């Protein structure tokens, strides 16, 4: 067995999801190669130190924008003797992995949340309302990994060699234009230890500021329910739920969120859930470890002040 992990690089470092994927890879094999599609020296140095990684493969050539059309052939070439190809199930991995799997005539397994053995995996279906255990009959297995289901590998203690990897060539099918990322000093939603989320009960885009002071006090990321996004209170990339991001922080504070199945699918694996809602019959209270019934416009400022 040997595993090839496709690293996702976020600006200057490897994404947290990749670190979780390395942990998942360790449940399959001790031999873990990390394919890095970024030429920065700092990124490569960081990758060498990740605990559990035995080889770092540095891709060359035209890697701009991580275009699927250009980098899929690079991954295909890097697969070589690997038996399992893993990436984190973020939008990067979701975009690229099926393209590579199809070129290998392999049926990918998406969003793996548990590794039973080298052929058998558990994955959520129906937005996590059921868990399927599947056995792959393919010779080479392509997996995307649900980052929140695995601990992040340590970023110190490893000493992997860096090897020259395949050369990416642009094939002219696609051109990268730009990336507009939401600017924030707060932790990234899927990596945050604490998430403060608002729903329709927040009432307006302006009112969302009330969550900012609480989030700043707690060092938390801000999230939202689909209802709040649909109402135009906050951009879509803040959305937690079936159609948004899946988070599993130490503490999730749901404010003015009723608890639609859609939303629960994105946060129910959080360690501790707190719900604050004026409707004492809101379904969110059934799954919240601690519920506080009342007016969020009184409770949140009081909470921010007393913390």
């Amino acid at each position, binding site marked *: 067995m040997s595993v090839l992990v496709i690293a996702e690089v976020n600006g200057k470092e490897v994404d947290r999801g990749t670190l979780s994927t390395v942990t998942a890879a360790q449940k399959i094999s001790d031999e873990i190669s990390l394919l890095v599609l970024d030429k920065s020296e700092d990124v490569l140095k960081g990758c060498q130190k990740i605990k559990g990684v035995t080889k770092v493969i540095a891709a060359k050539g035209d890697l701009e924008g991580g275009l699927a059309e250009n980098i899929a052939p690079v991954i295909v070439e890097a697969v070589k003797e690997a038996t399992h190809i893993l990436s984190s199930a973020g939008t990067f991995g979701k975009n690229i992995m099926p393209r590579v799997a199809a070129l290998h005539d392999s049926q990918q397994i998406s969003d793996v949340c548990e590794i039973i053995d080298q052929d058998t995996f558990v994955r959520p279906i129906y937005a996590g309302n059921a868990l399927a255990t599947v056995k792959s009959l393919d010779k080479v297995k392509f997996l995307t990994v649900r980052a929140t289901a695995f601990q992040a590998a340590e970023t110190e203690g490893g000493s992997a060699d860096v090897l020259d990897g395949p050369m990416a060539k642009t094939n002219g099918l696609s051109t990268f234009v730009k990336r*507009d990322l939401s600017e924030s000093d707060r932790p990234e939603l899927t990596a945050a230890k604490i998430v403060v989320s608002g729903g329709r009960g927040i009432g307006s885009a302006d009112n969302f500021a009330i969550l900012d002071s609480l989030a700043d006090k707690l060092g938390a990321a801000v999230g939202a329910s689909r209802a709040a996004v649909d109402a135009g209170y906050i951009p879509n990339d803040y959305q937690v739920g079936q159609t948004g991001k899946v988070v599993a922080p130490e503490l999730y504070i749901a404010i003015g969120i009723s608890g639609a199945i859609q939303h629960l699918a994105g946060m129910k694996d959080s360690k501790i859930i707190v719900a604050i809602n004026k409707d004492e019959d809101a379904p969110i209270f059934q799954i919240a470890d601690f519920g506080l019934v009342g007016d969020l416009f009184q409770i949140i400022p009081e909470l921010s002040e007393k913390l």
Partner: protein
Amino acid sequence: MKVLVPVKRVIDYNVKIRVNSEESAVETNNVKMSMNPFDEIAVEEAVRLKEAGLVDEIIIVSIGNKSVQETIRTAFAMGGDRGIHIVNEDNTEPLVVAKILKDLVINEKTDLVIMGKQAIDDDANQTGQMLAALLNWPQGTFASKIELNNKELNIVREIDGGLETLKIKLPCVVTTDLRLNEPRYASLPNIMKAKKKEIIEVPISDTGIDFKNRLEVLKVQEPPVRIGGRKVEDVNELINVLKNEVGVI
């Protein structure tokens, strides 16, 4: 230009699903079925392109048992022109679906495929990317905005942390995200017209594609139930339990 739009029949998104007593699958008997919501967005986008004069014909494809013809007709009522039903009583995996679609794209000489980014039953999010790979076409996944020119498509994609803009050449595959559009409701006259549109049936065994599943489903289970329900009286008690009882702040 012809556009191909594959649609999948799934359990309606409002239904609370149940695992069957054998723990082998999710119960689909006597459950309300609908078109996969992301596929509805794909149909809507194709219809808008046709209304803008950029597309001549919309071909709807679905794979499954006889009942998927109802889903094809739903797409007809929104504006689809004709349908292809690949008959398979069993579940069809994404890689097989991609292979079937590849042959259809070649036979029909379509230059554009618009499809949902994922089906809300198996949540695989694979078929569009696989189809693009097999055709060696570019892929515009998770689209929240597209602009079609003669030979090119400008696409804004939903990515972690924000948006990305790409230019991709035609022919190409586009997969839809939620914000691309809001699908229309079909009007009664269009629902009536939809009944007369043509659907060609092709048994999956006639496609010449090896459709054997590569994943064996060993079991399907309900996730562990989370039990909450404890209430606190006020902010002071909340801070106290979070600090001293569970130690998360």
